């Protein structure tokens, strides 16, 4: 896609990505190309987030909803009724759904991580295109099974690394980092997701809504607390490095266009001492990127926001790009020795922020202070739900109008190194990756 194309088309196209070739084209079962029949698999918090985003996308028919918790099931069906005017079919069991529902085109999987692979594979084998939340699985083999099922079925499978469809990220990568080389040579990366303690508490639930123990056991949960807080358990999820870090470590590899060669991590249960997963993790990845070696640091903290939130910082010889889903955390800084960016400002690629006021005169004590770096911003604010462009890309691909921005194969390449962060931290040893550790 050239810049003129980019300018000429709407944000849906921008969200759809740099897409020229049409993939396998799917027609809805009733022959109406505009109508895509969707099954919603999992209507917990993330399922609702995705539904909110999908409700902005025209041409979708939400045919069926599945969740093992009646509370989620009723709520999901109610949300569908609210926008569609009719109740969808409801199911507790996905196998029941796949057996009975006819004419489905798509499944959107937002179940707990340890169910992602079984559910996604079942849907692919049933002939559905699948949008599956990240991580692909809580295990490397689970993630592999999705890649294989997608290849064998010939169906589309998009994994929910939604930054890959975010116009700000795509613009930054394509036009600022690649085409205009604002970073020069990227030499280091820093990323973080710092979450405040008040946002990291156990998820509570109204005890009157407790799921029958037989049903909990059938679906792999020992009790209701585990069902509500499955992210704390090693057999059910990858913990904070997976829940939060995977989004940003995905961006590291995407922007560098390679996998890391090693990881060295440290983590601990320093605050939440009874949780199985680390409540804070720090990891160093080393890359042999096409442009040169890069060392990347990533931290996920769940007991302090540290005034920082979440962002990724690409540091180069000519400049640094800080990027985030939050516009307020996105900025660029030019190295004083780098070529001027005035022409990029004139052409609308970036805006220059006013220089900060000079510090007050010294009180006489000798001091040394570097000049504040020039700060630039990316113009505009994404004002869609953050998952919407990625879902738009998925449904455009289902219609044959786009190519997936994060198919299962590329998602696996991105996620594989992340599976080794916790093992490195547990062993307190660096892991130099072998091909077997990173390949399907």
């Amino acid at each position, binding site marked *: 896609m050239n*810049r003129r194309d*980019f*300018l000429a*088309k*709407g*944000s849906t*196209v*921008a969200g759809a990505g740099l897409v020229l070739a049409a993939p396998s084209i799917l027609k809805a079962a009733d022959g109406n190309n505009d109508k895509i029949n969707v099954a919603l698999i999992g209507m917990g918090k993330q399922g609702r987030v995705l539904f*909110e985003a999908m*409700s*902005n996308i025209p041409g979708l028919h939400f045919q069926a909803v599945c969740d093992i918790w009646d*509370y989620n099931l*009723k*709520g999901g069906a*109610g*949300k569908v*009724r*609210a926008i569609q005017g009719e109740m969808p079919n409801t199911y507790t069991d996905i196998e029941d759904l796949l057996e009975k529902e006819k004419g489905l085109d798509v499944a959107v999987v937002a179940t707990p991580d340890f169910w992602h692979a079984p559910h996604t594979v079942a849907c692919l084998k049933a002939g559905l295109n699948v949008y599956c939340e990240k991580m692909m699985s809580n295990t490397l083999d689970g993630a592999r099974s999705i890649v294989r099922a997608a290849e064998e079925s010939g169906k589309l499978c998009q994994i929910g690394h939604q930054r890959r469809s975010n*116009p*700000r990220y795509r*613009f930054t990568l394509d*036009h600022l980092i690649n085409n205009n080389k604002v970073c020069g040579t990227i030499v280091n990366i820093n990323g973080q997701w710092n979450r*405040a303690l*008040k*946002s990291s*508490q156990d*998820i*509570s*639930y*109204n005890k*009157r*809504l407790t799921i029958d123990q037989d049903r909990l056991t059938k679906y792999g949960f020992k009790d209701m607390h585990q069902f*509500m807080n499955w992210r704390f358990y090693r057999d059910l999820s990858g913990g904070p490095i997976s829940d939060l870090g995977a989004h940003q470590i995905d961006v590291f590899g995407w922007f560098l266009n390679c996998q890391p060669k090693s990881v060295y991590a440290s983590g601990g249960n320093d605050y939440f001492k009874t949780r199985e997963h680390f409540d804070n993790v720090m990891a160093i990845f080393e890359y042999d990127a096409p442009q040169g070696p890069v060392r990347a640091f990533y931290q996920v903290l769940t007991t302090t*926001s540290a005034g920082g*939130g979440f962002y990724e910082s690409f540091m180069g010889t000519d400049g640094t790009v800080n990027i985030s889903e939050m516009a307020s955390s996105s900025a660029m800084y030019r190295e004083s020795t780098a070529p001027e960016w005035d022409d990029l400002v004139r*052409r*609308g*690629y970036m805006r220059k922020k006013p220089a900060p006021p000079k510090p007050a005169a010294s009180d006489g004590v000798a001091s040394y202070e570097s000049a504040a770096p020039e700060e630039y911003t*990316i*113009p*505009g*604010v*994404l*004002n*869609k*739900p953050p998952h919407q462009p990625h879902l738009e890309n998925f449904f455009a691909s289902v219609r044959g109008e786009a190519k997936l921005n994060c198919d299962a194969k590329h998602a696996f390449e991105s996620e594989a190194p992340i599976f080794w962060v916790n093992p490195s931290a547990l062993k307190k040893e660096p892991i130099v990756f072998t091909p077997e550790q990173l390949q399907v």
Partner: protein
Amino acid sequence: MKPTKTSIVSNLILGAAAALMLGACGDKDGAEDGDNTGGSGTNDPGVGTQGGVELTTDLPKEVIEGSPKPKGIKNLAPETKKFPKFLVPEGTVNLAKGKKVTASDDYPILGEPELITDGEKETGEGYFLELIEGTQWVQIDLEKSNPIYAIVMWHFHGQKRAYHDIIVQASDDPDFKEGVTTLFNNDYDNSSKLGKGNNQPYVESRFGQLVNGKGTKARYVRLYSNGNSANEMNHYIEVEVFGKPE
């Protein structure tokens, strides 16, 4: 027009050659936090009944999801940091506890109306009622007409969001056609067509929002809302109506 989901889906290109397709600001006026062009009143309930006793209530713990804050809300009230000191006549009790609740939406998306008066104020799953988009109401039947001195309401305090067009009324008429007293109204642009109000929009918190009942004698209390800054739906966790049985 308040910033809602439907108002933010349109997009435009910012900058002639910005080459970046991003969205327009959700608020038609482009108002930012702290804009003082909205309602001119405050949400301060005052001191309450002179010579009375301090109103107390059990407060839920703070659990906040994520860090987004409302944008584009005019005249947003300062964030609540504590439950206000407010005096009520001795013998005042929560008249709403366990009382029947009805709602404008016959098919709530999540939860049941009874959750609003069950005494549970937590923000977790299963504690709140979710009603469809648009201006919706819930109504509590206190069973008898008694003087009301305070109303405390919690919409959904698990995220820093502001609900639109919050209107609290009291009446002895279950249809709210006659003898209606409006105790709180932050619909600064009358978008819900119930009259323009001077109270401020506010960010939900575990402290709820205390409304001065002013001793209004009423059997029914009705609370309106019209979506919120995070989505178009309407939510209620708990409503307490403090009055003195006669």
